[in-house]
């Protein structure tokens, strides 16, 4: 077992307690997106969620970020019930969402600006993170001058800048080409390990989920619920590139494919 699961005293960062989310539909019956979710993520843990399209993975992140309230049950971040957007969580999407009129540095400072931090402090944090995300020298560039991979790294720096307790990531690398994607996974794995951040990671990529996380949660078709938890017993969380080639990856992927019925799905 990995080190984290042995440490039962580790603090819970993010918790879903019996969470159900229903959306009103035009026919009036309503759609249940997710049902009876119980998830608990400890400090410093990286957890991936994998599941069929439309199973409510993104709904989960919206509830955790406070953008969208749960219909039933509660979401807690650091033991505090999430009722509205707050500075303890930050999310990152497939699109980099960099603002084209801001330089890379000012994009990274965006969240800090909204929180009203002084300019000098913002600048220090942004420059530090840009260096960590290998974007030193690009702080005064505009987003359109950067490649897709660099932009996504800038988006990661922007997410880390507000120093959130929990990072919520919704398929952040799915728009990148295969090689860039692996480089960014490596960056993310290293950065998360260095900063000791807790992350909830939604992805479609089975190997990505295994390479990056301590645990993988598998969701069912709508109404989405957790049908399996796989603890990834591969060492060195800070090195996803090496983890990819570990002999355990094959059996884990096989198990996930079986759970997701990928062999039976219509392409």
């Amino acid at each position, binding site marked *: 077992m990995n080190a984290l699961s042995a440490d039962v005293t580790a603090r819970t960062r993010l918790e879903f307690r019996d969470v159900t989310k229903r959306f009103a539909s035009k026919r009036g019956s309503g759609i249940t997106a997710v049902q009876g979710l119980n998830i608990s993520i400890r400090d410093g843990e990286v957890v991936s969620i994998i599941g069929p399209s439309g199973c409510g993975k993104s709904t989960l992140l919206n509830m955790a970020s406070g953008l969208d309230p749960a219909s039933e049950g509660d979401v807690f971040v650091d033991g505090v019930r999430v009722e509205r957007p707050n500075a303890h969580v*930050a999310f990152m999407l497939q699109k980099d969402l960099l603002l084209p009129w801001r330089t890379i540095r000012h994009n990274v400072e965006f969240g800090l600006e909204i929180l009203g931090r002084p300019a000098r402090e913002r600048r220090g944090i942004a420059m530090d993170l840009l260096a960590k995300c290998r974007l030193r020298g690009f702080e005064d560039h505009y987003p359109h001058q950067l490649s897709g991979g660099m932009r996504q790294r800038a988006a990661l720096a922007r997410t880390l800048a507000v120093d959130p307790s929990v990072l919520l990531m919704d398929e952040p690398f799915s728009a990148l080409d295969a090689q860039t994607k692996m480089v960014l996974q490596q960056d993310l794995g290293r950065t998360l390990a260095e900063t000791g951040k807790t992350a909830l990671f939604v992805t479609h990529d089975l190997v990505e989920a295994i390479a990056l996380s301590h645990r993988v949660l598998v969701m069912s078709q709508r109404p989405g619920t957790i049908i399996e938890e796989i603890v990834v017993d591969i060492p060195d969380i800070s090195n996803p590139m090496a983890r990819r080639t570990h002999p355990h990856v094959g059996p884990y992927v096989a198990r996930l494919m079986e759970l997701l019925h990928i062999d039976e799905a219509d392409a």
Partner: protein
Amino acid sequence: MAAASLGLFVLFLAAWQWGPPAMGIPAFIIPPADQVWHEFVRMLGRDQLMYHTSITALQVLLGFVFGMLLGMVVGFVLGMSASAEFVLSPYILALQIAPKVAFAPLFVIWFGYTMTPKILVAVLIVFFPVMINVLGAVRAIDPDIVRLARAFTANRFQLFWKIEFPAALPPFFAGLRIAATLAVIGVVVGELVGGNTGLGYLLSFGEGAGNTAMVFVTIILLTLIGIVLYGAIVLIERRVLHFMPARARAAG
């Protein structure tokens, strides 16, 4: 390139000067270039040409600025509130379809031979391209950017000032470019309909006197006012939108 455009300009002047007489077109139909130049100099001395030009330019500028501000405010309000747009859109559409210059006589009845009716026609005519572009830009903002800002705990004002306002700037400037050329039309029509000042007044005076050269001088000056305004907008746009890729800016 510069030499080619200068050459073309000289060629144009020469064609204007000697072309019509060579084809037997009389000077009261197309006055040659030198006659228009002499008329320009005469008008400077006798007809207070600079005074009338500055009156027109001032009205264009005021109409442009007020129309721009109004278009911007209404564009943002409608862009942010779907219900306001739903309620107001039929009226706005009707006003947009109505030929704005047709309001000139009405404004003259209301406000007399003052600067007000001319400015109002310009305001009305400038308002639409600005408003439509700002409205469209606010509507086109990626909802995920708004979600991101909200997740960072942005309030309504921050959302406007950090997202909606800067996002609307490129289309706003595209609207201003169109508006710059339209503002001159609005003011001239106002002056043609009623007044005893401005280039529009000189235009109708020249027409009444059968002074074709005078009409030519006036048209050229009106065009110059439009060019100066347009050029100023392009300069400001370059300063403000410096973050845009050069090609996208040129196309916009």
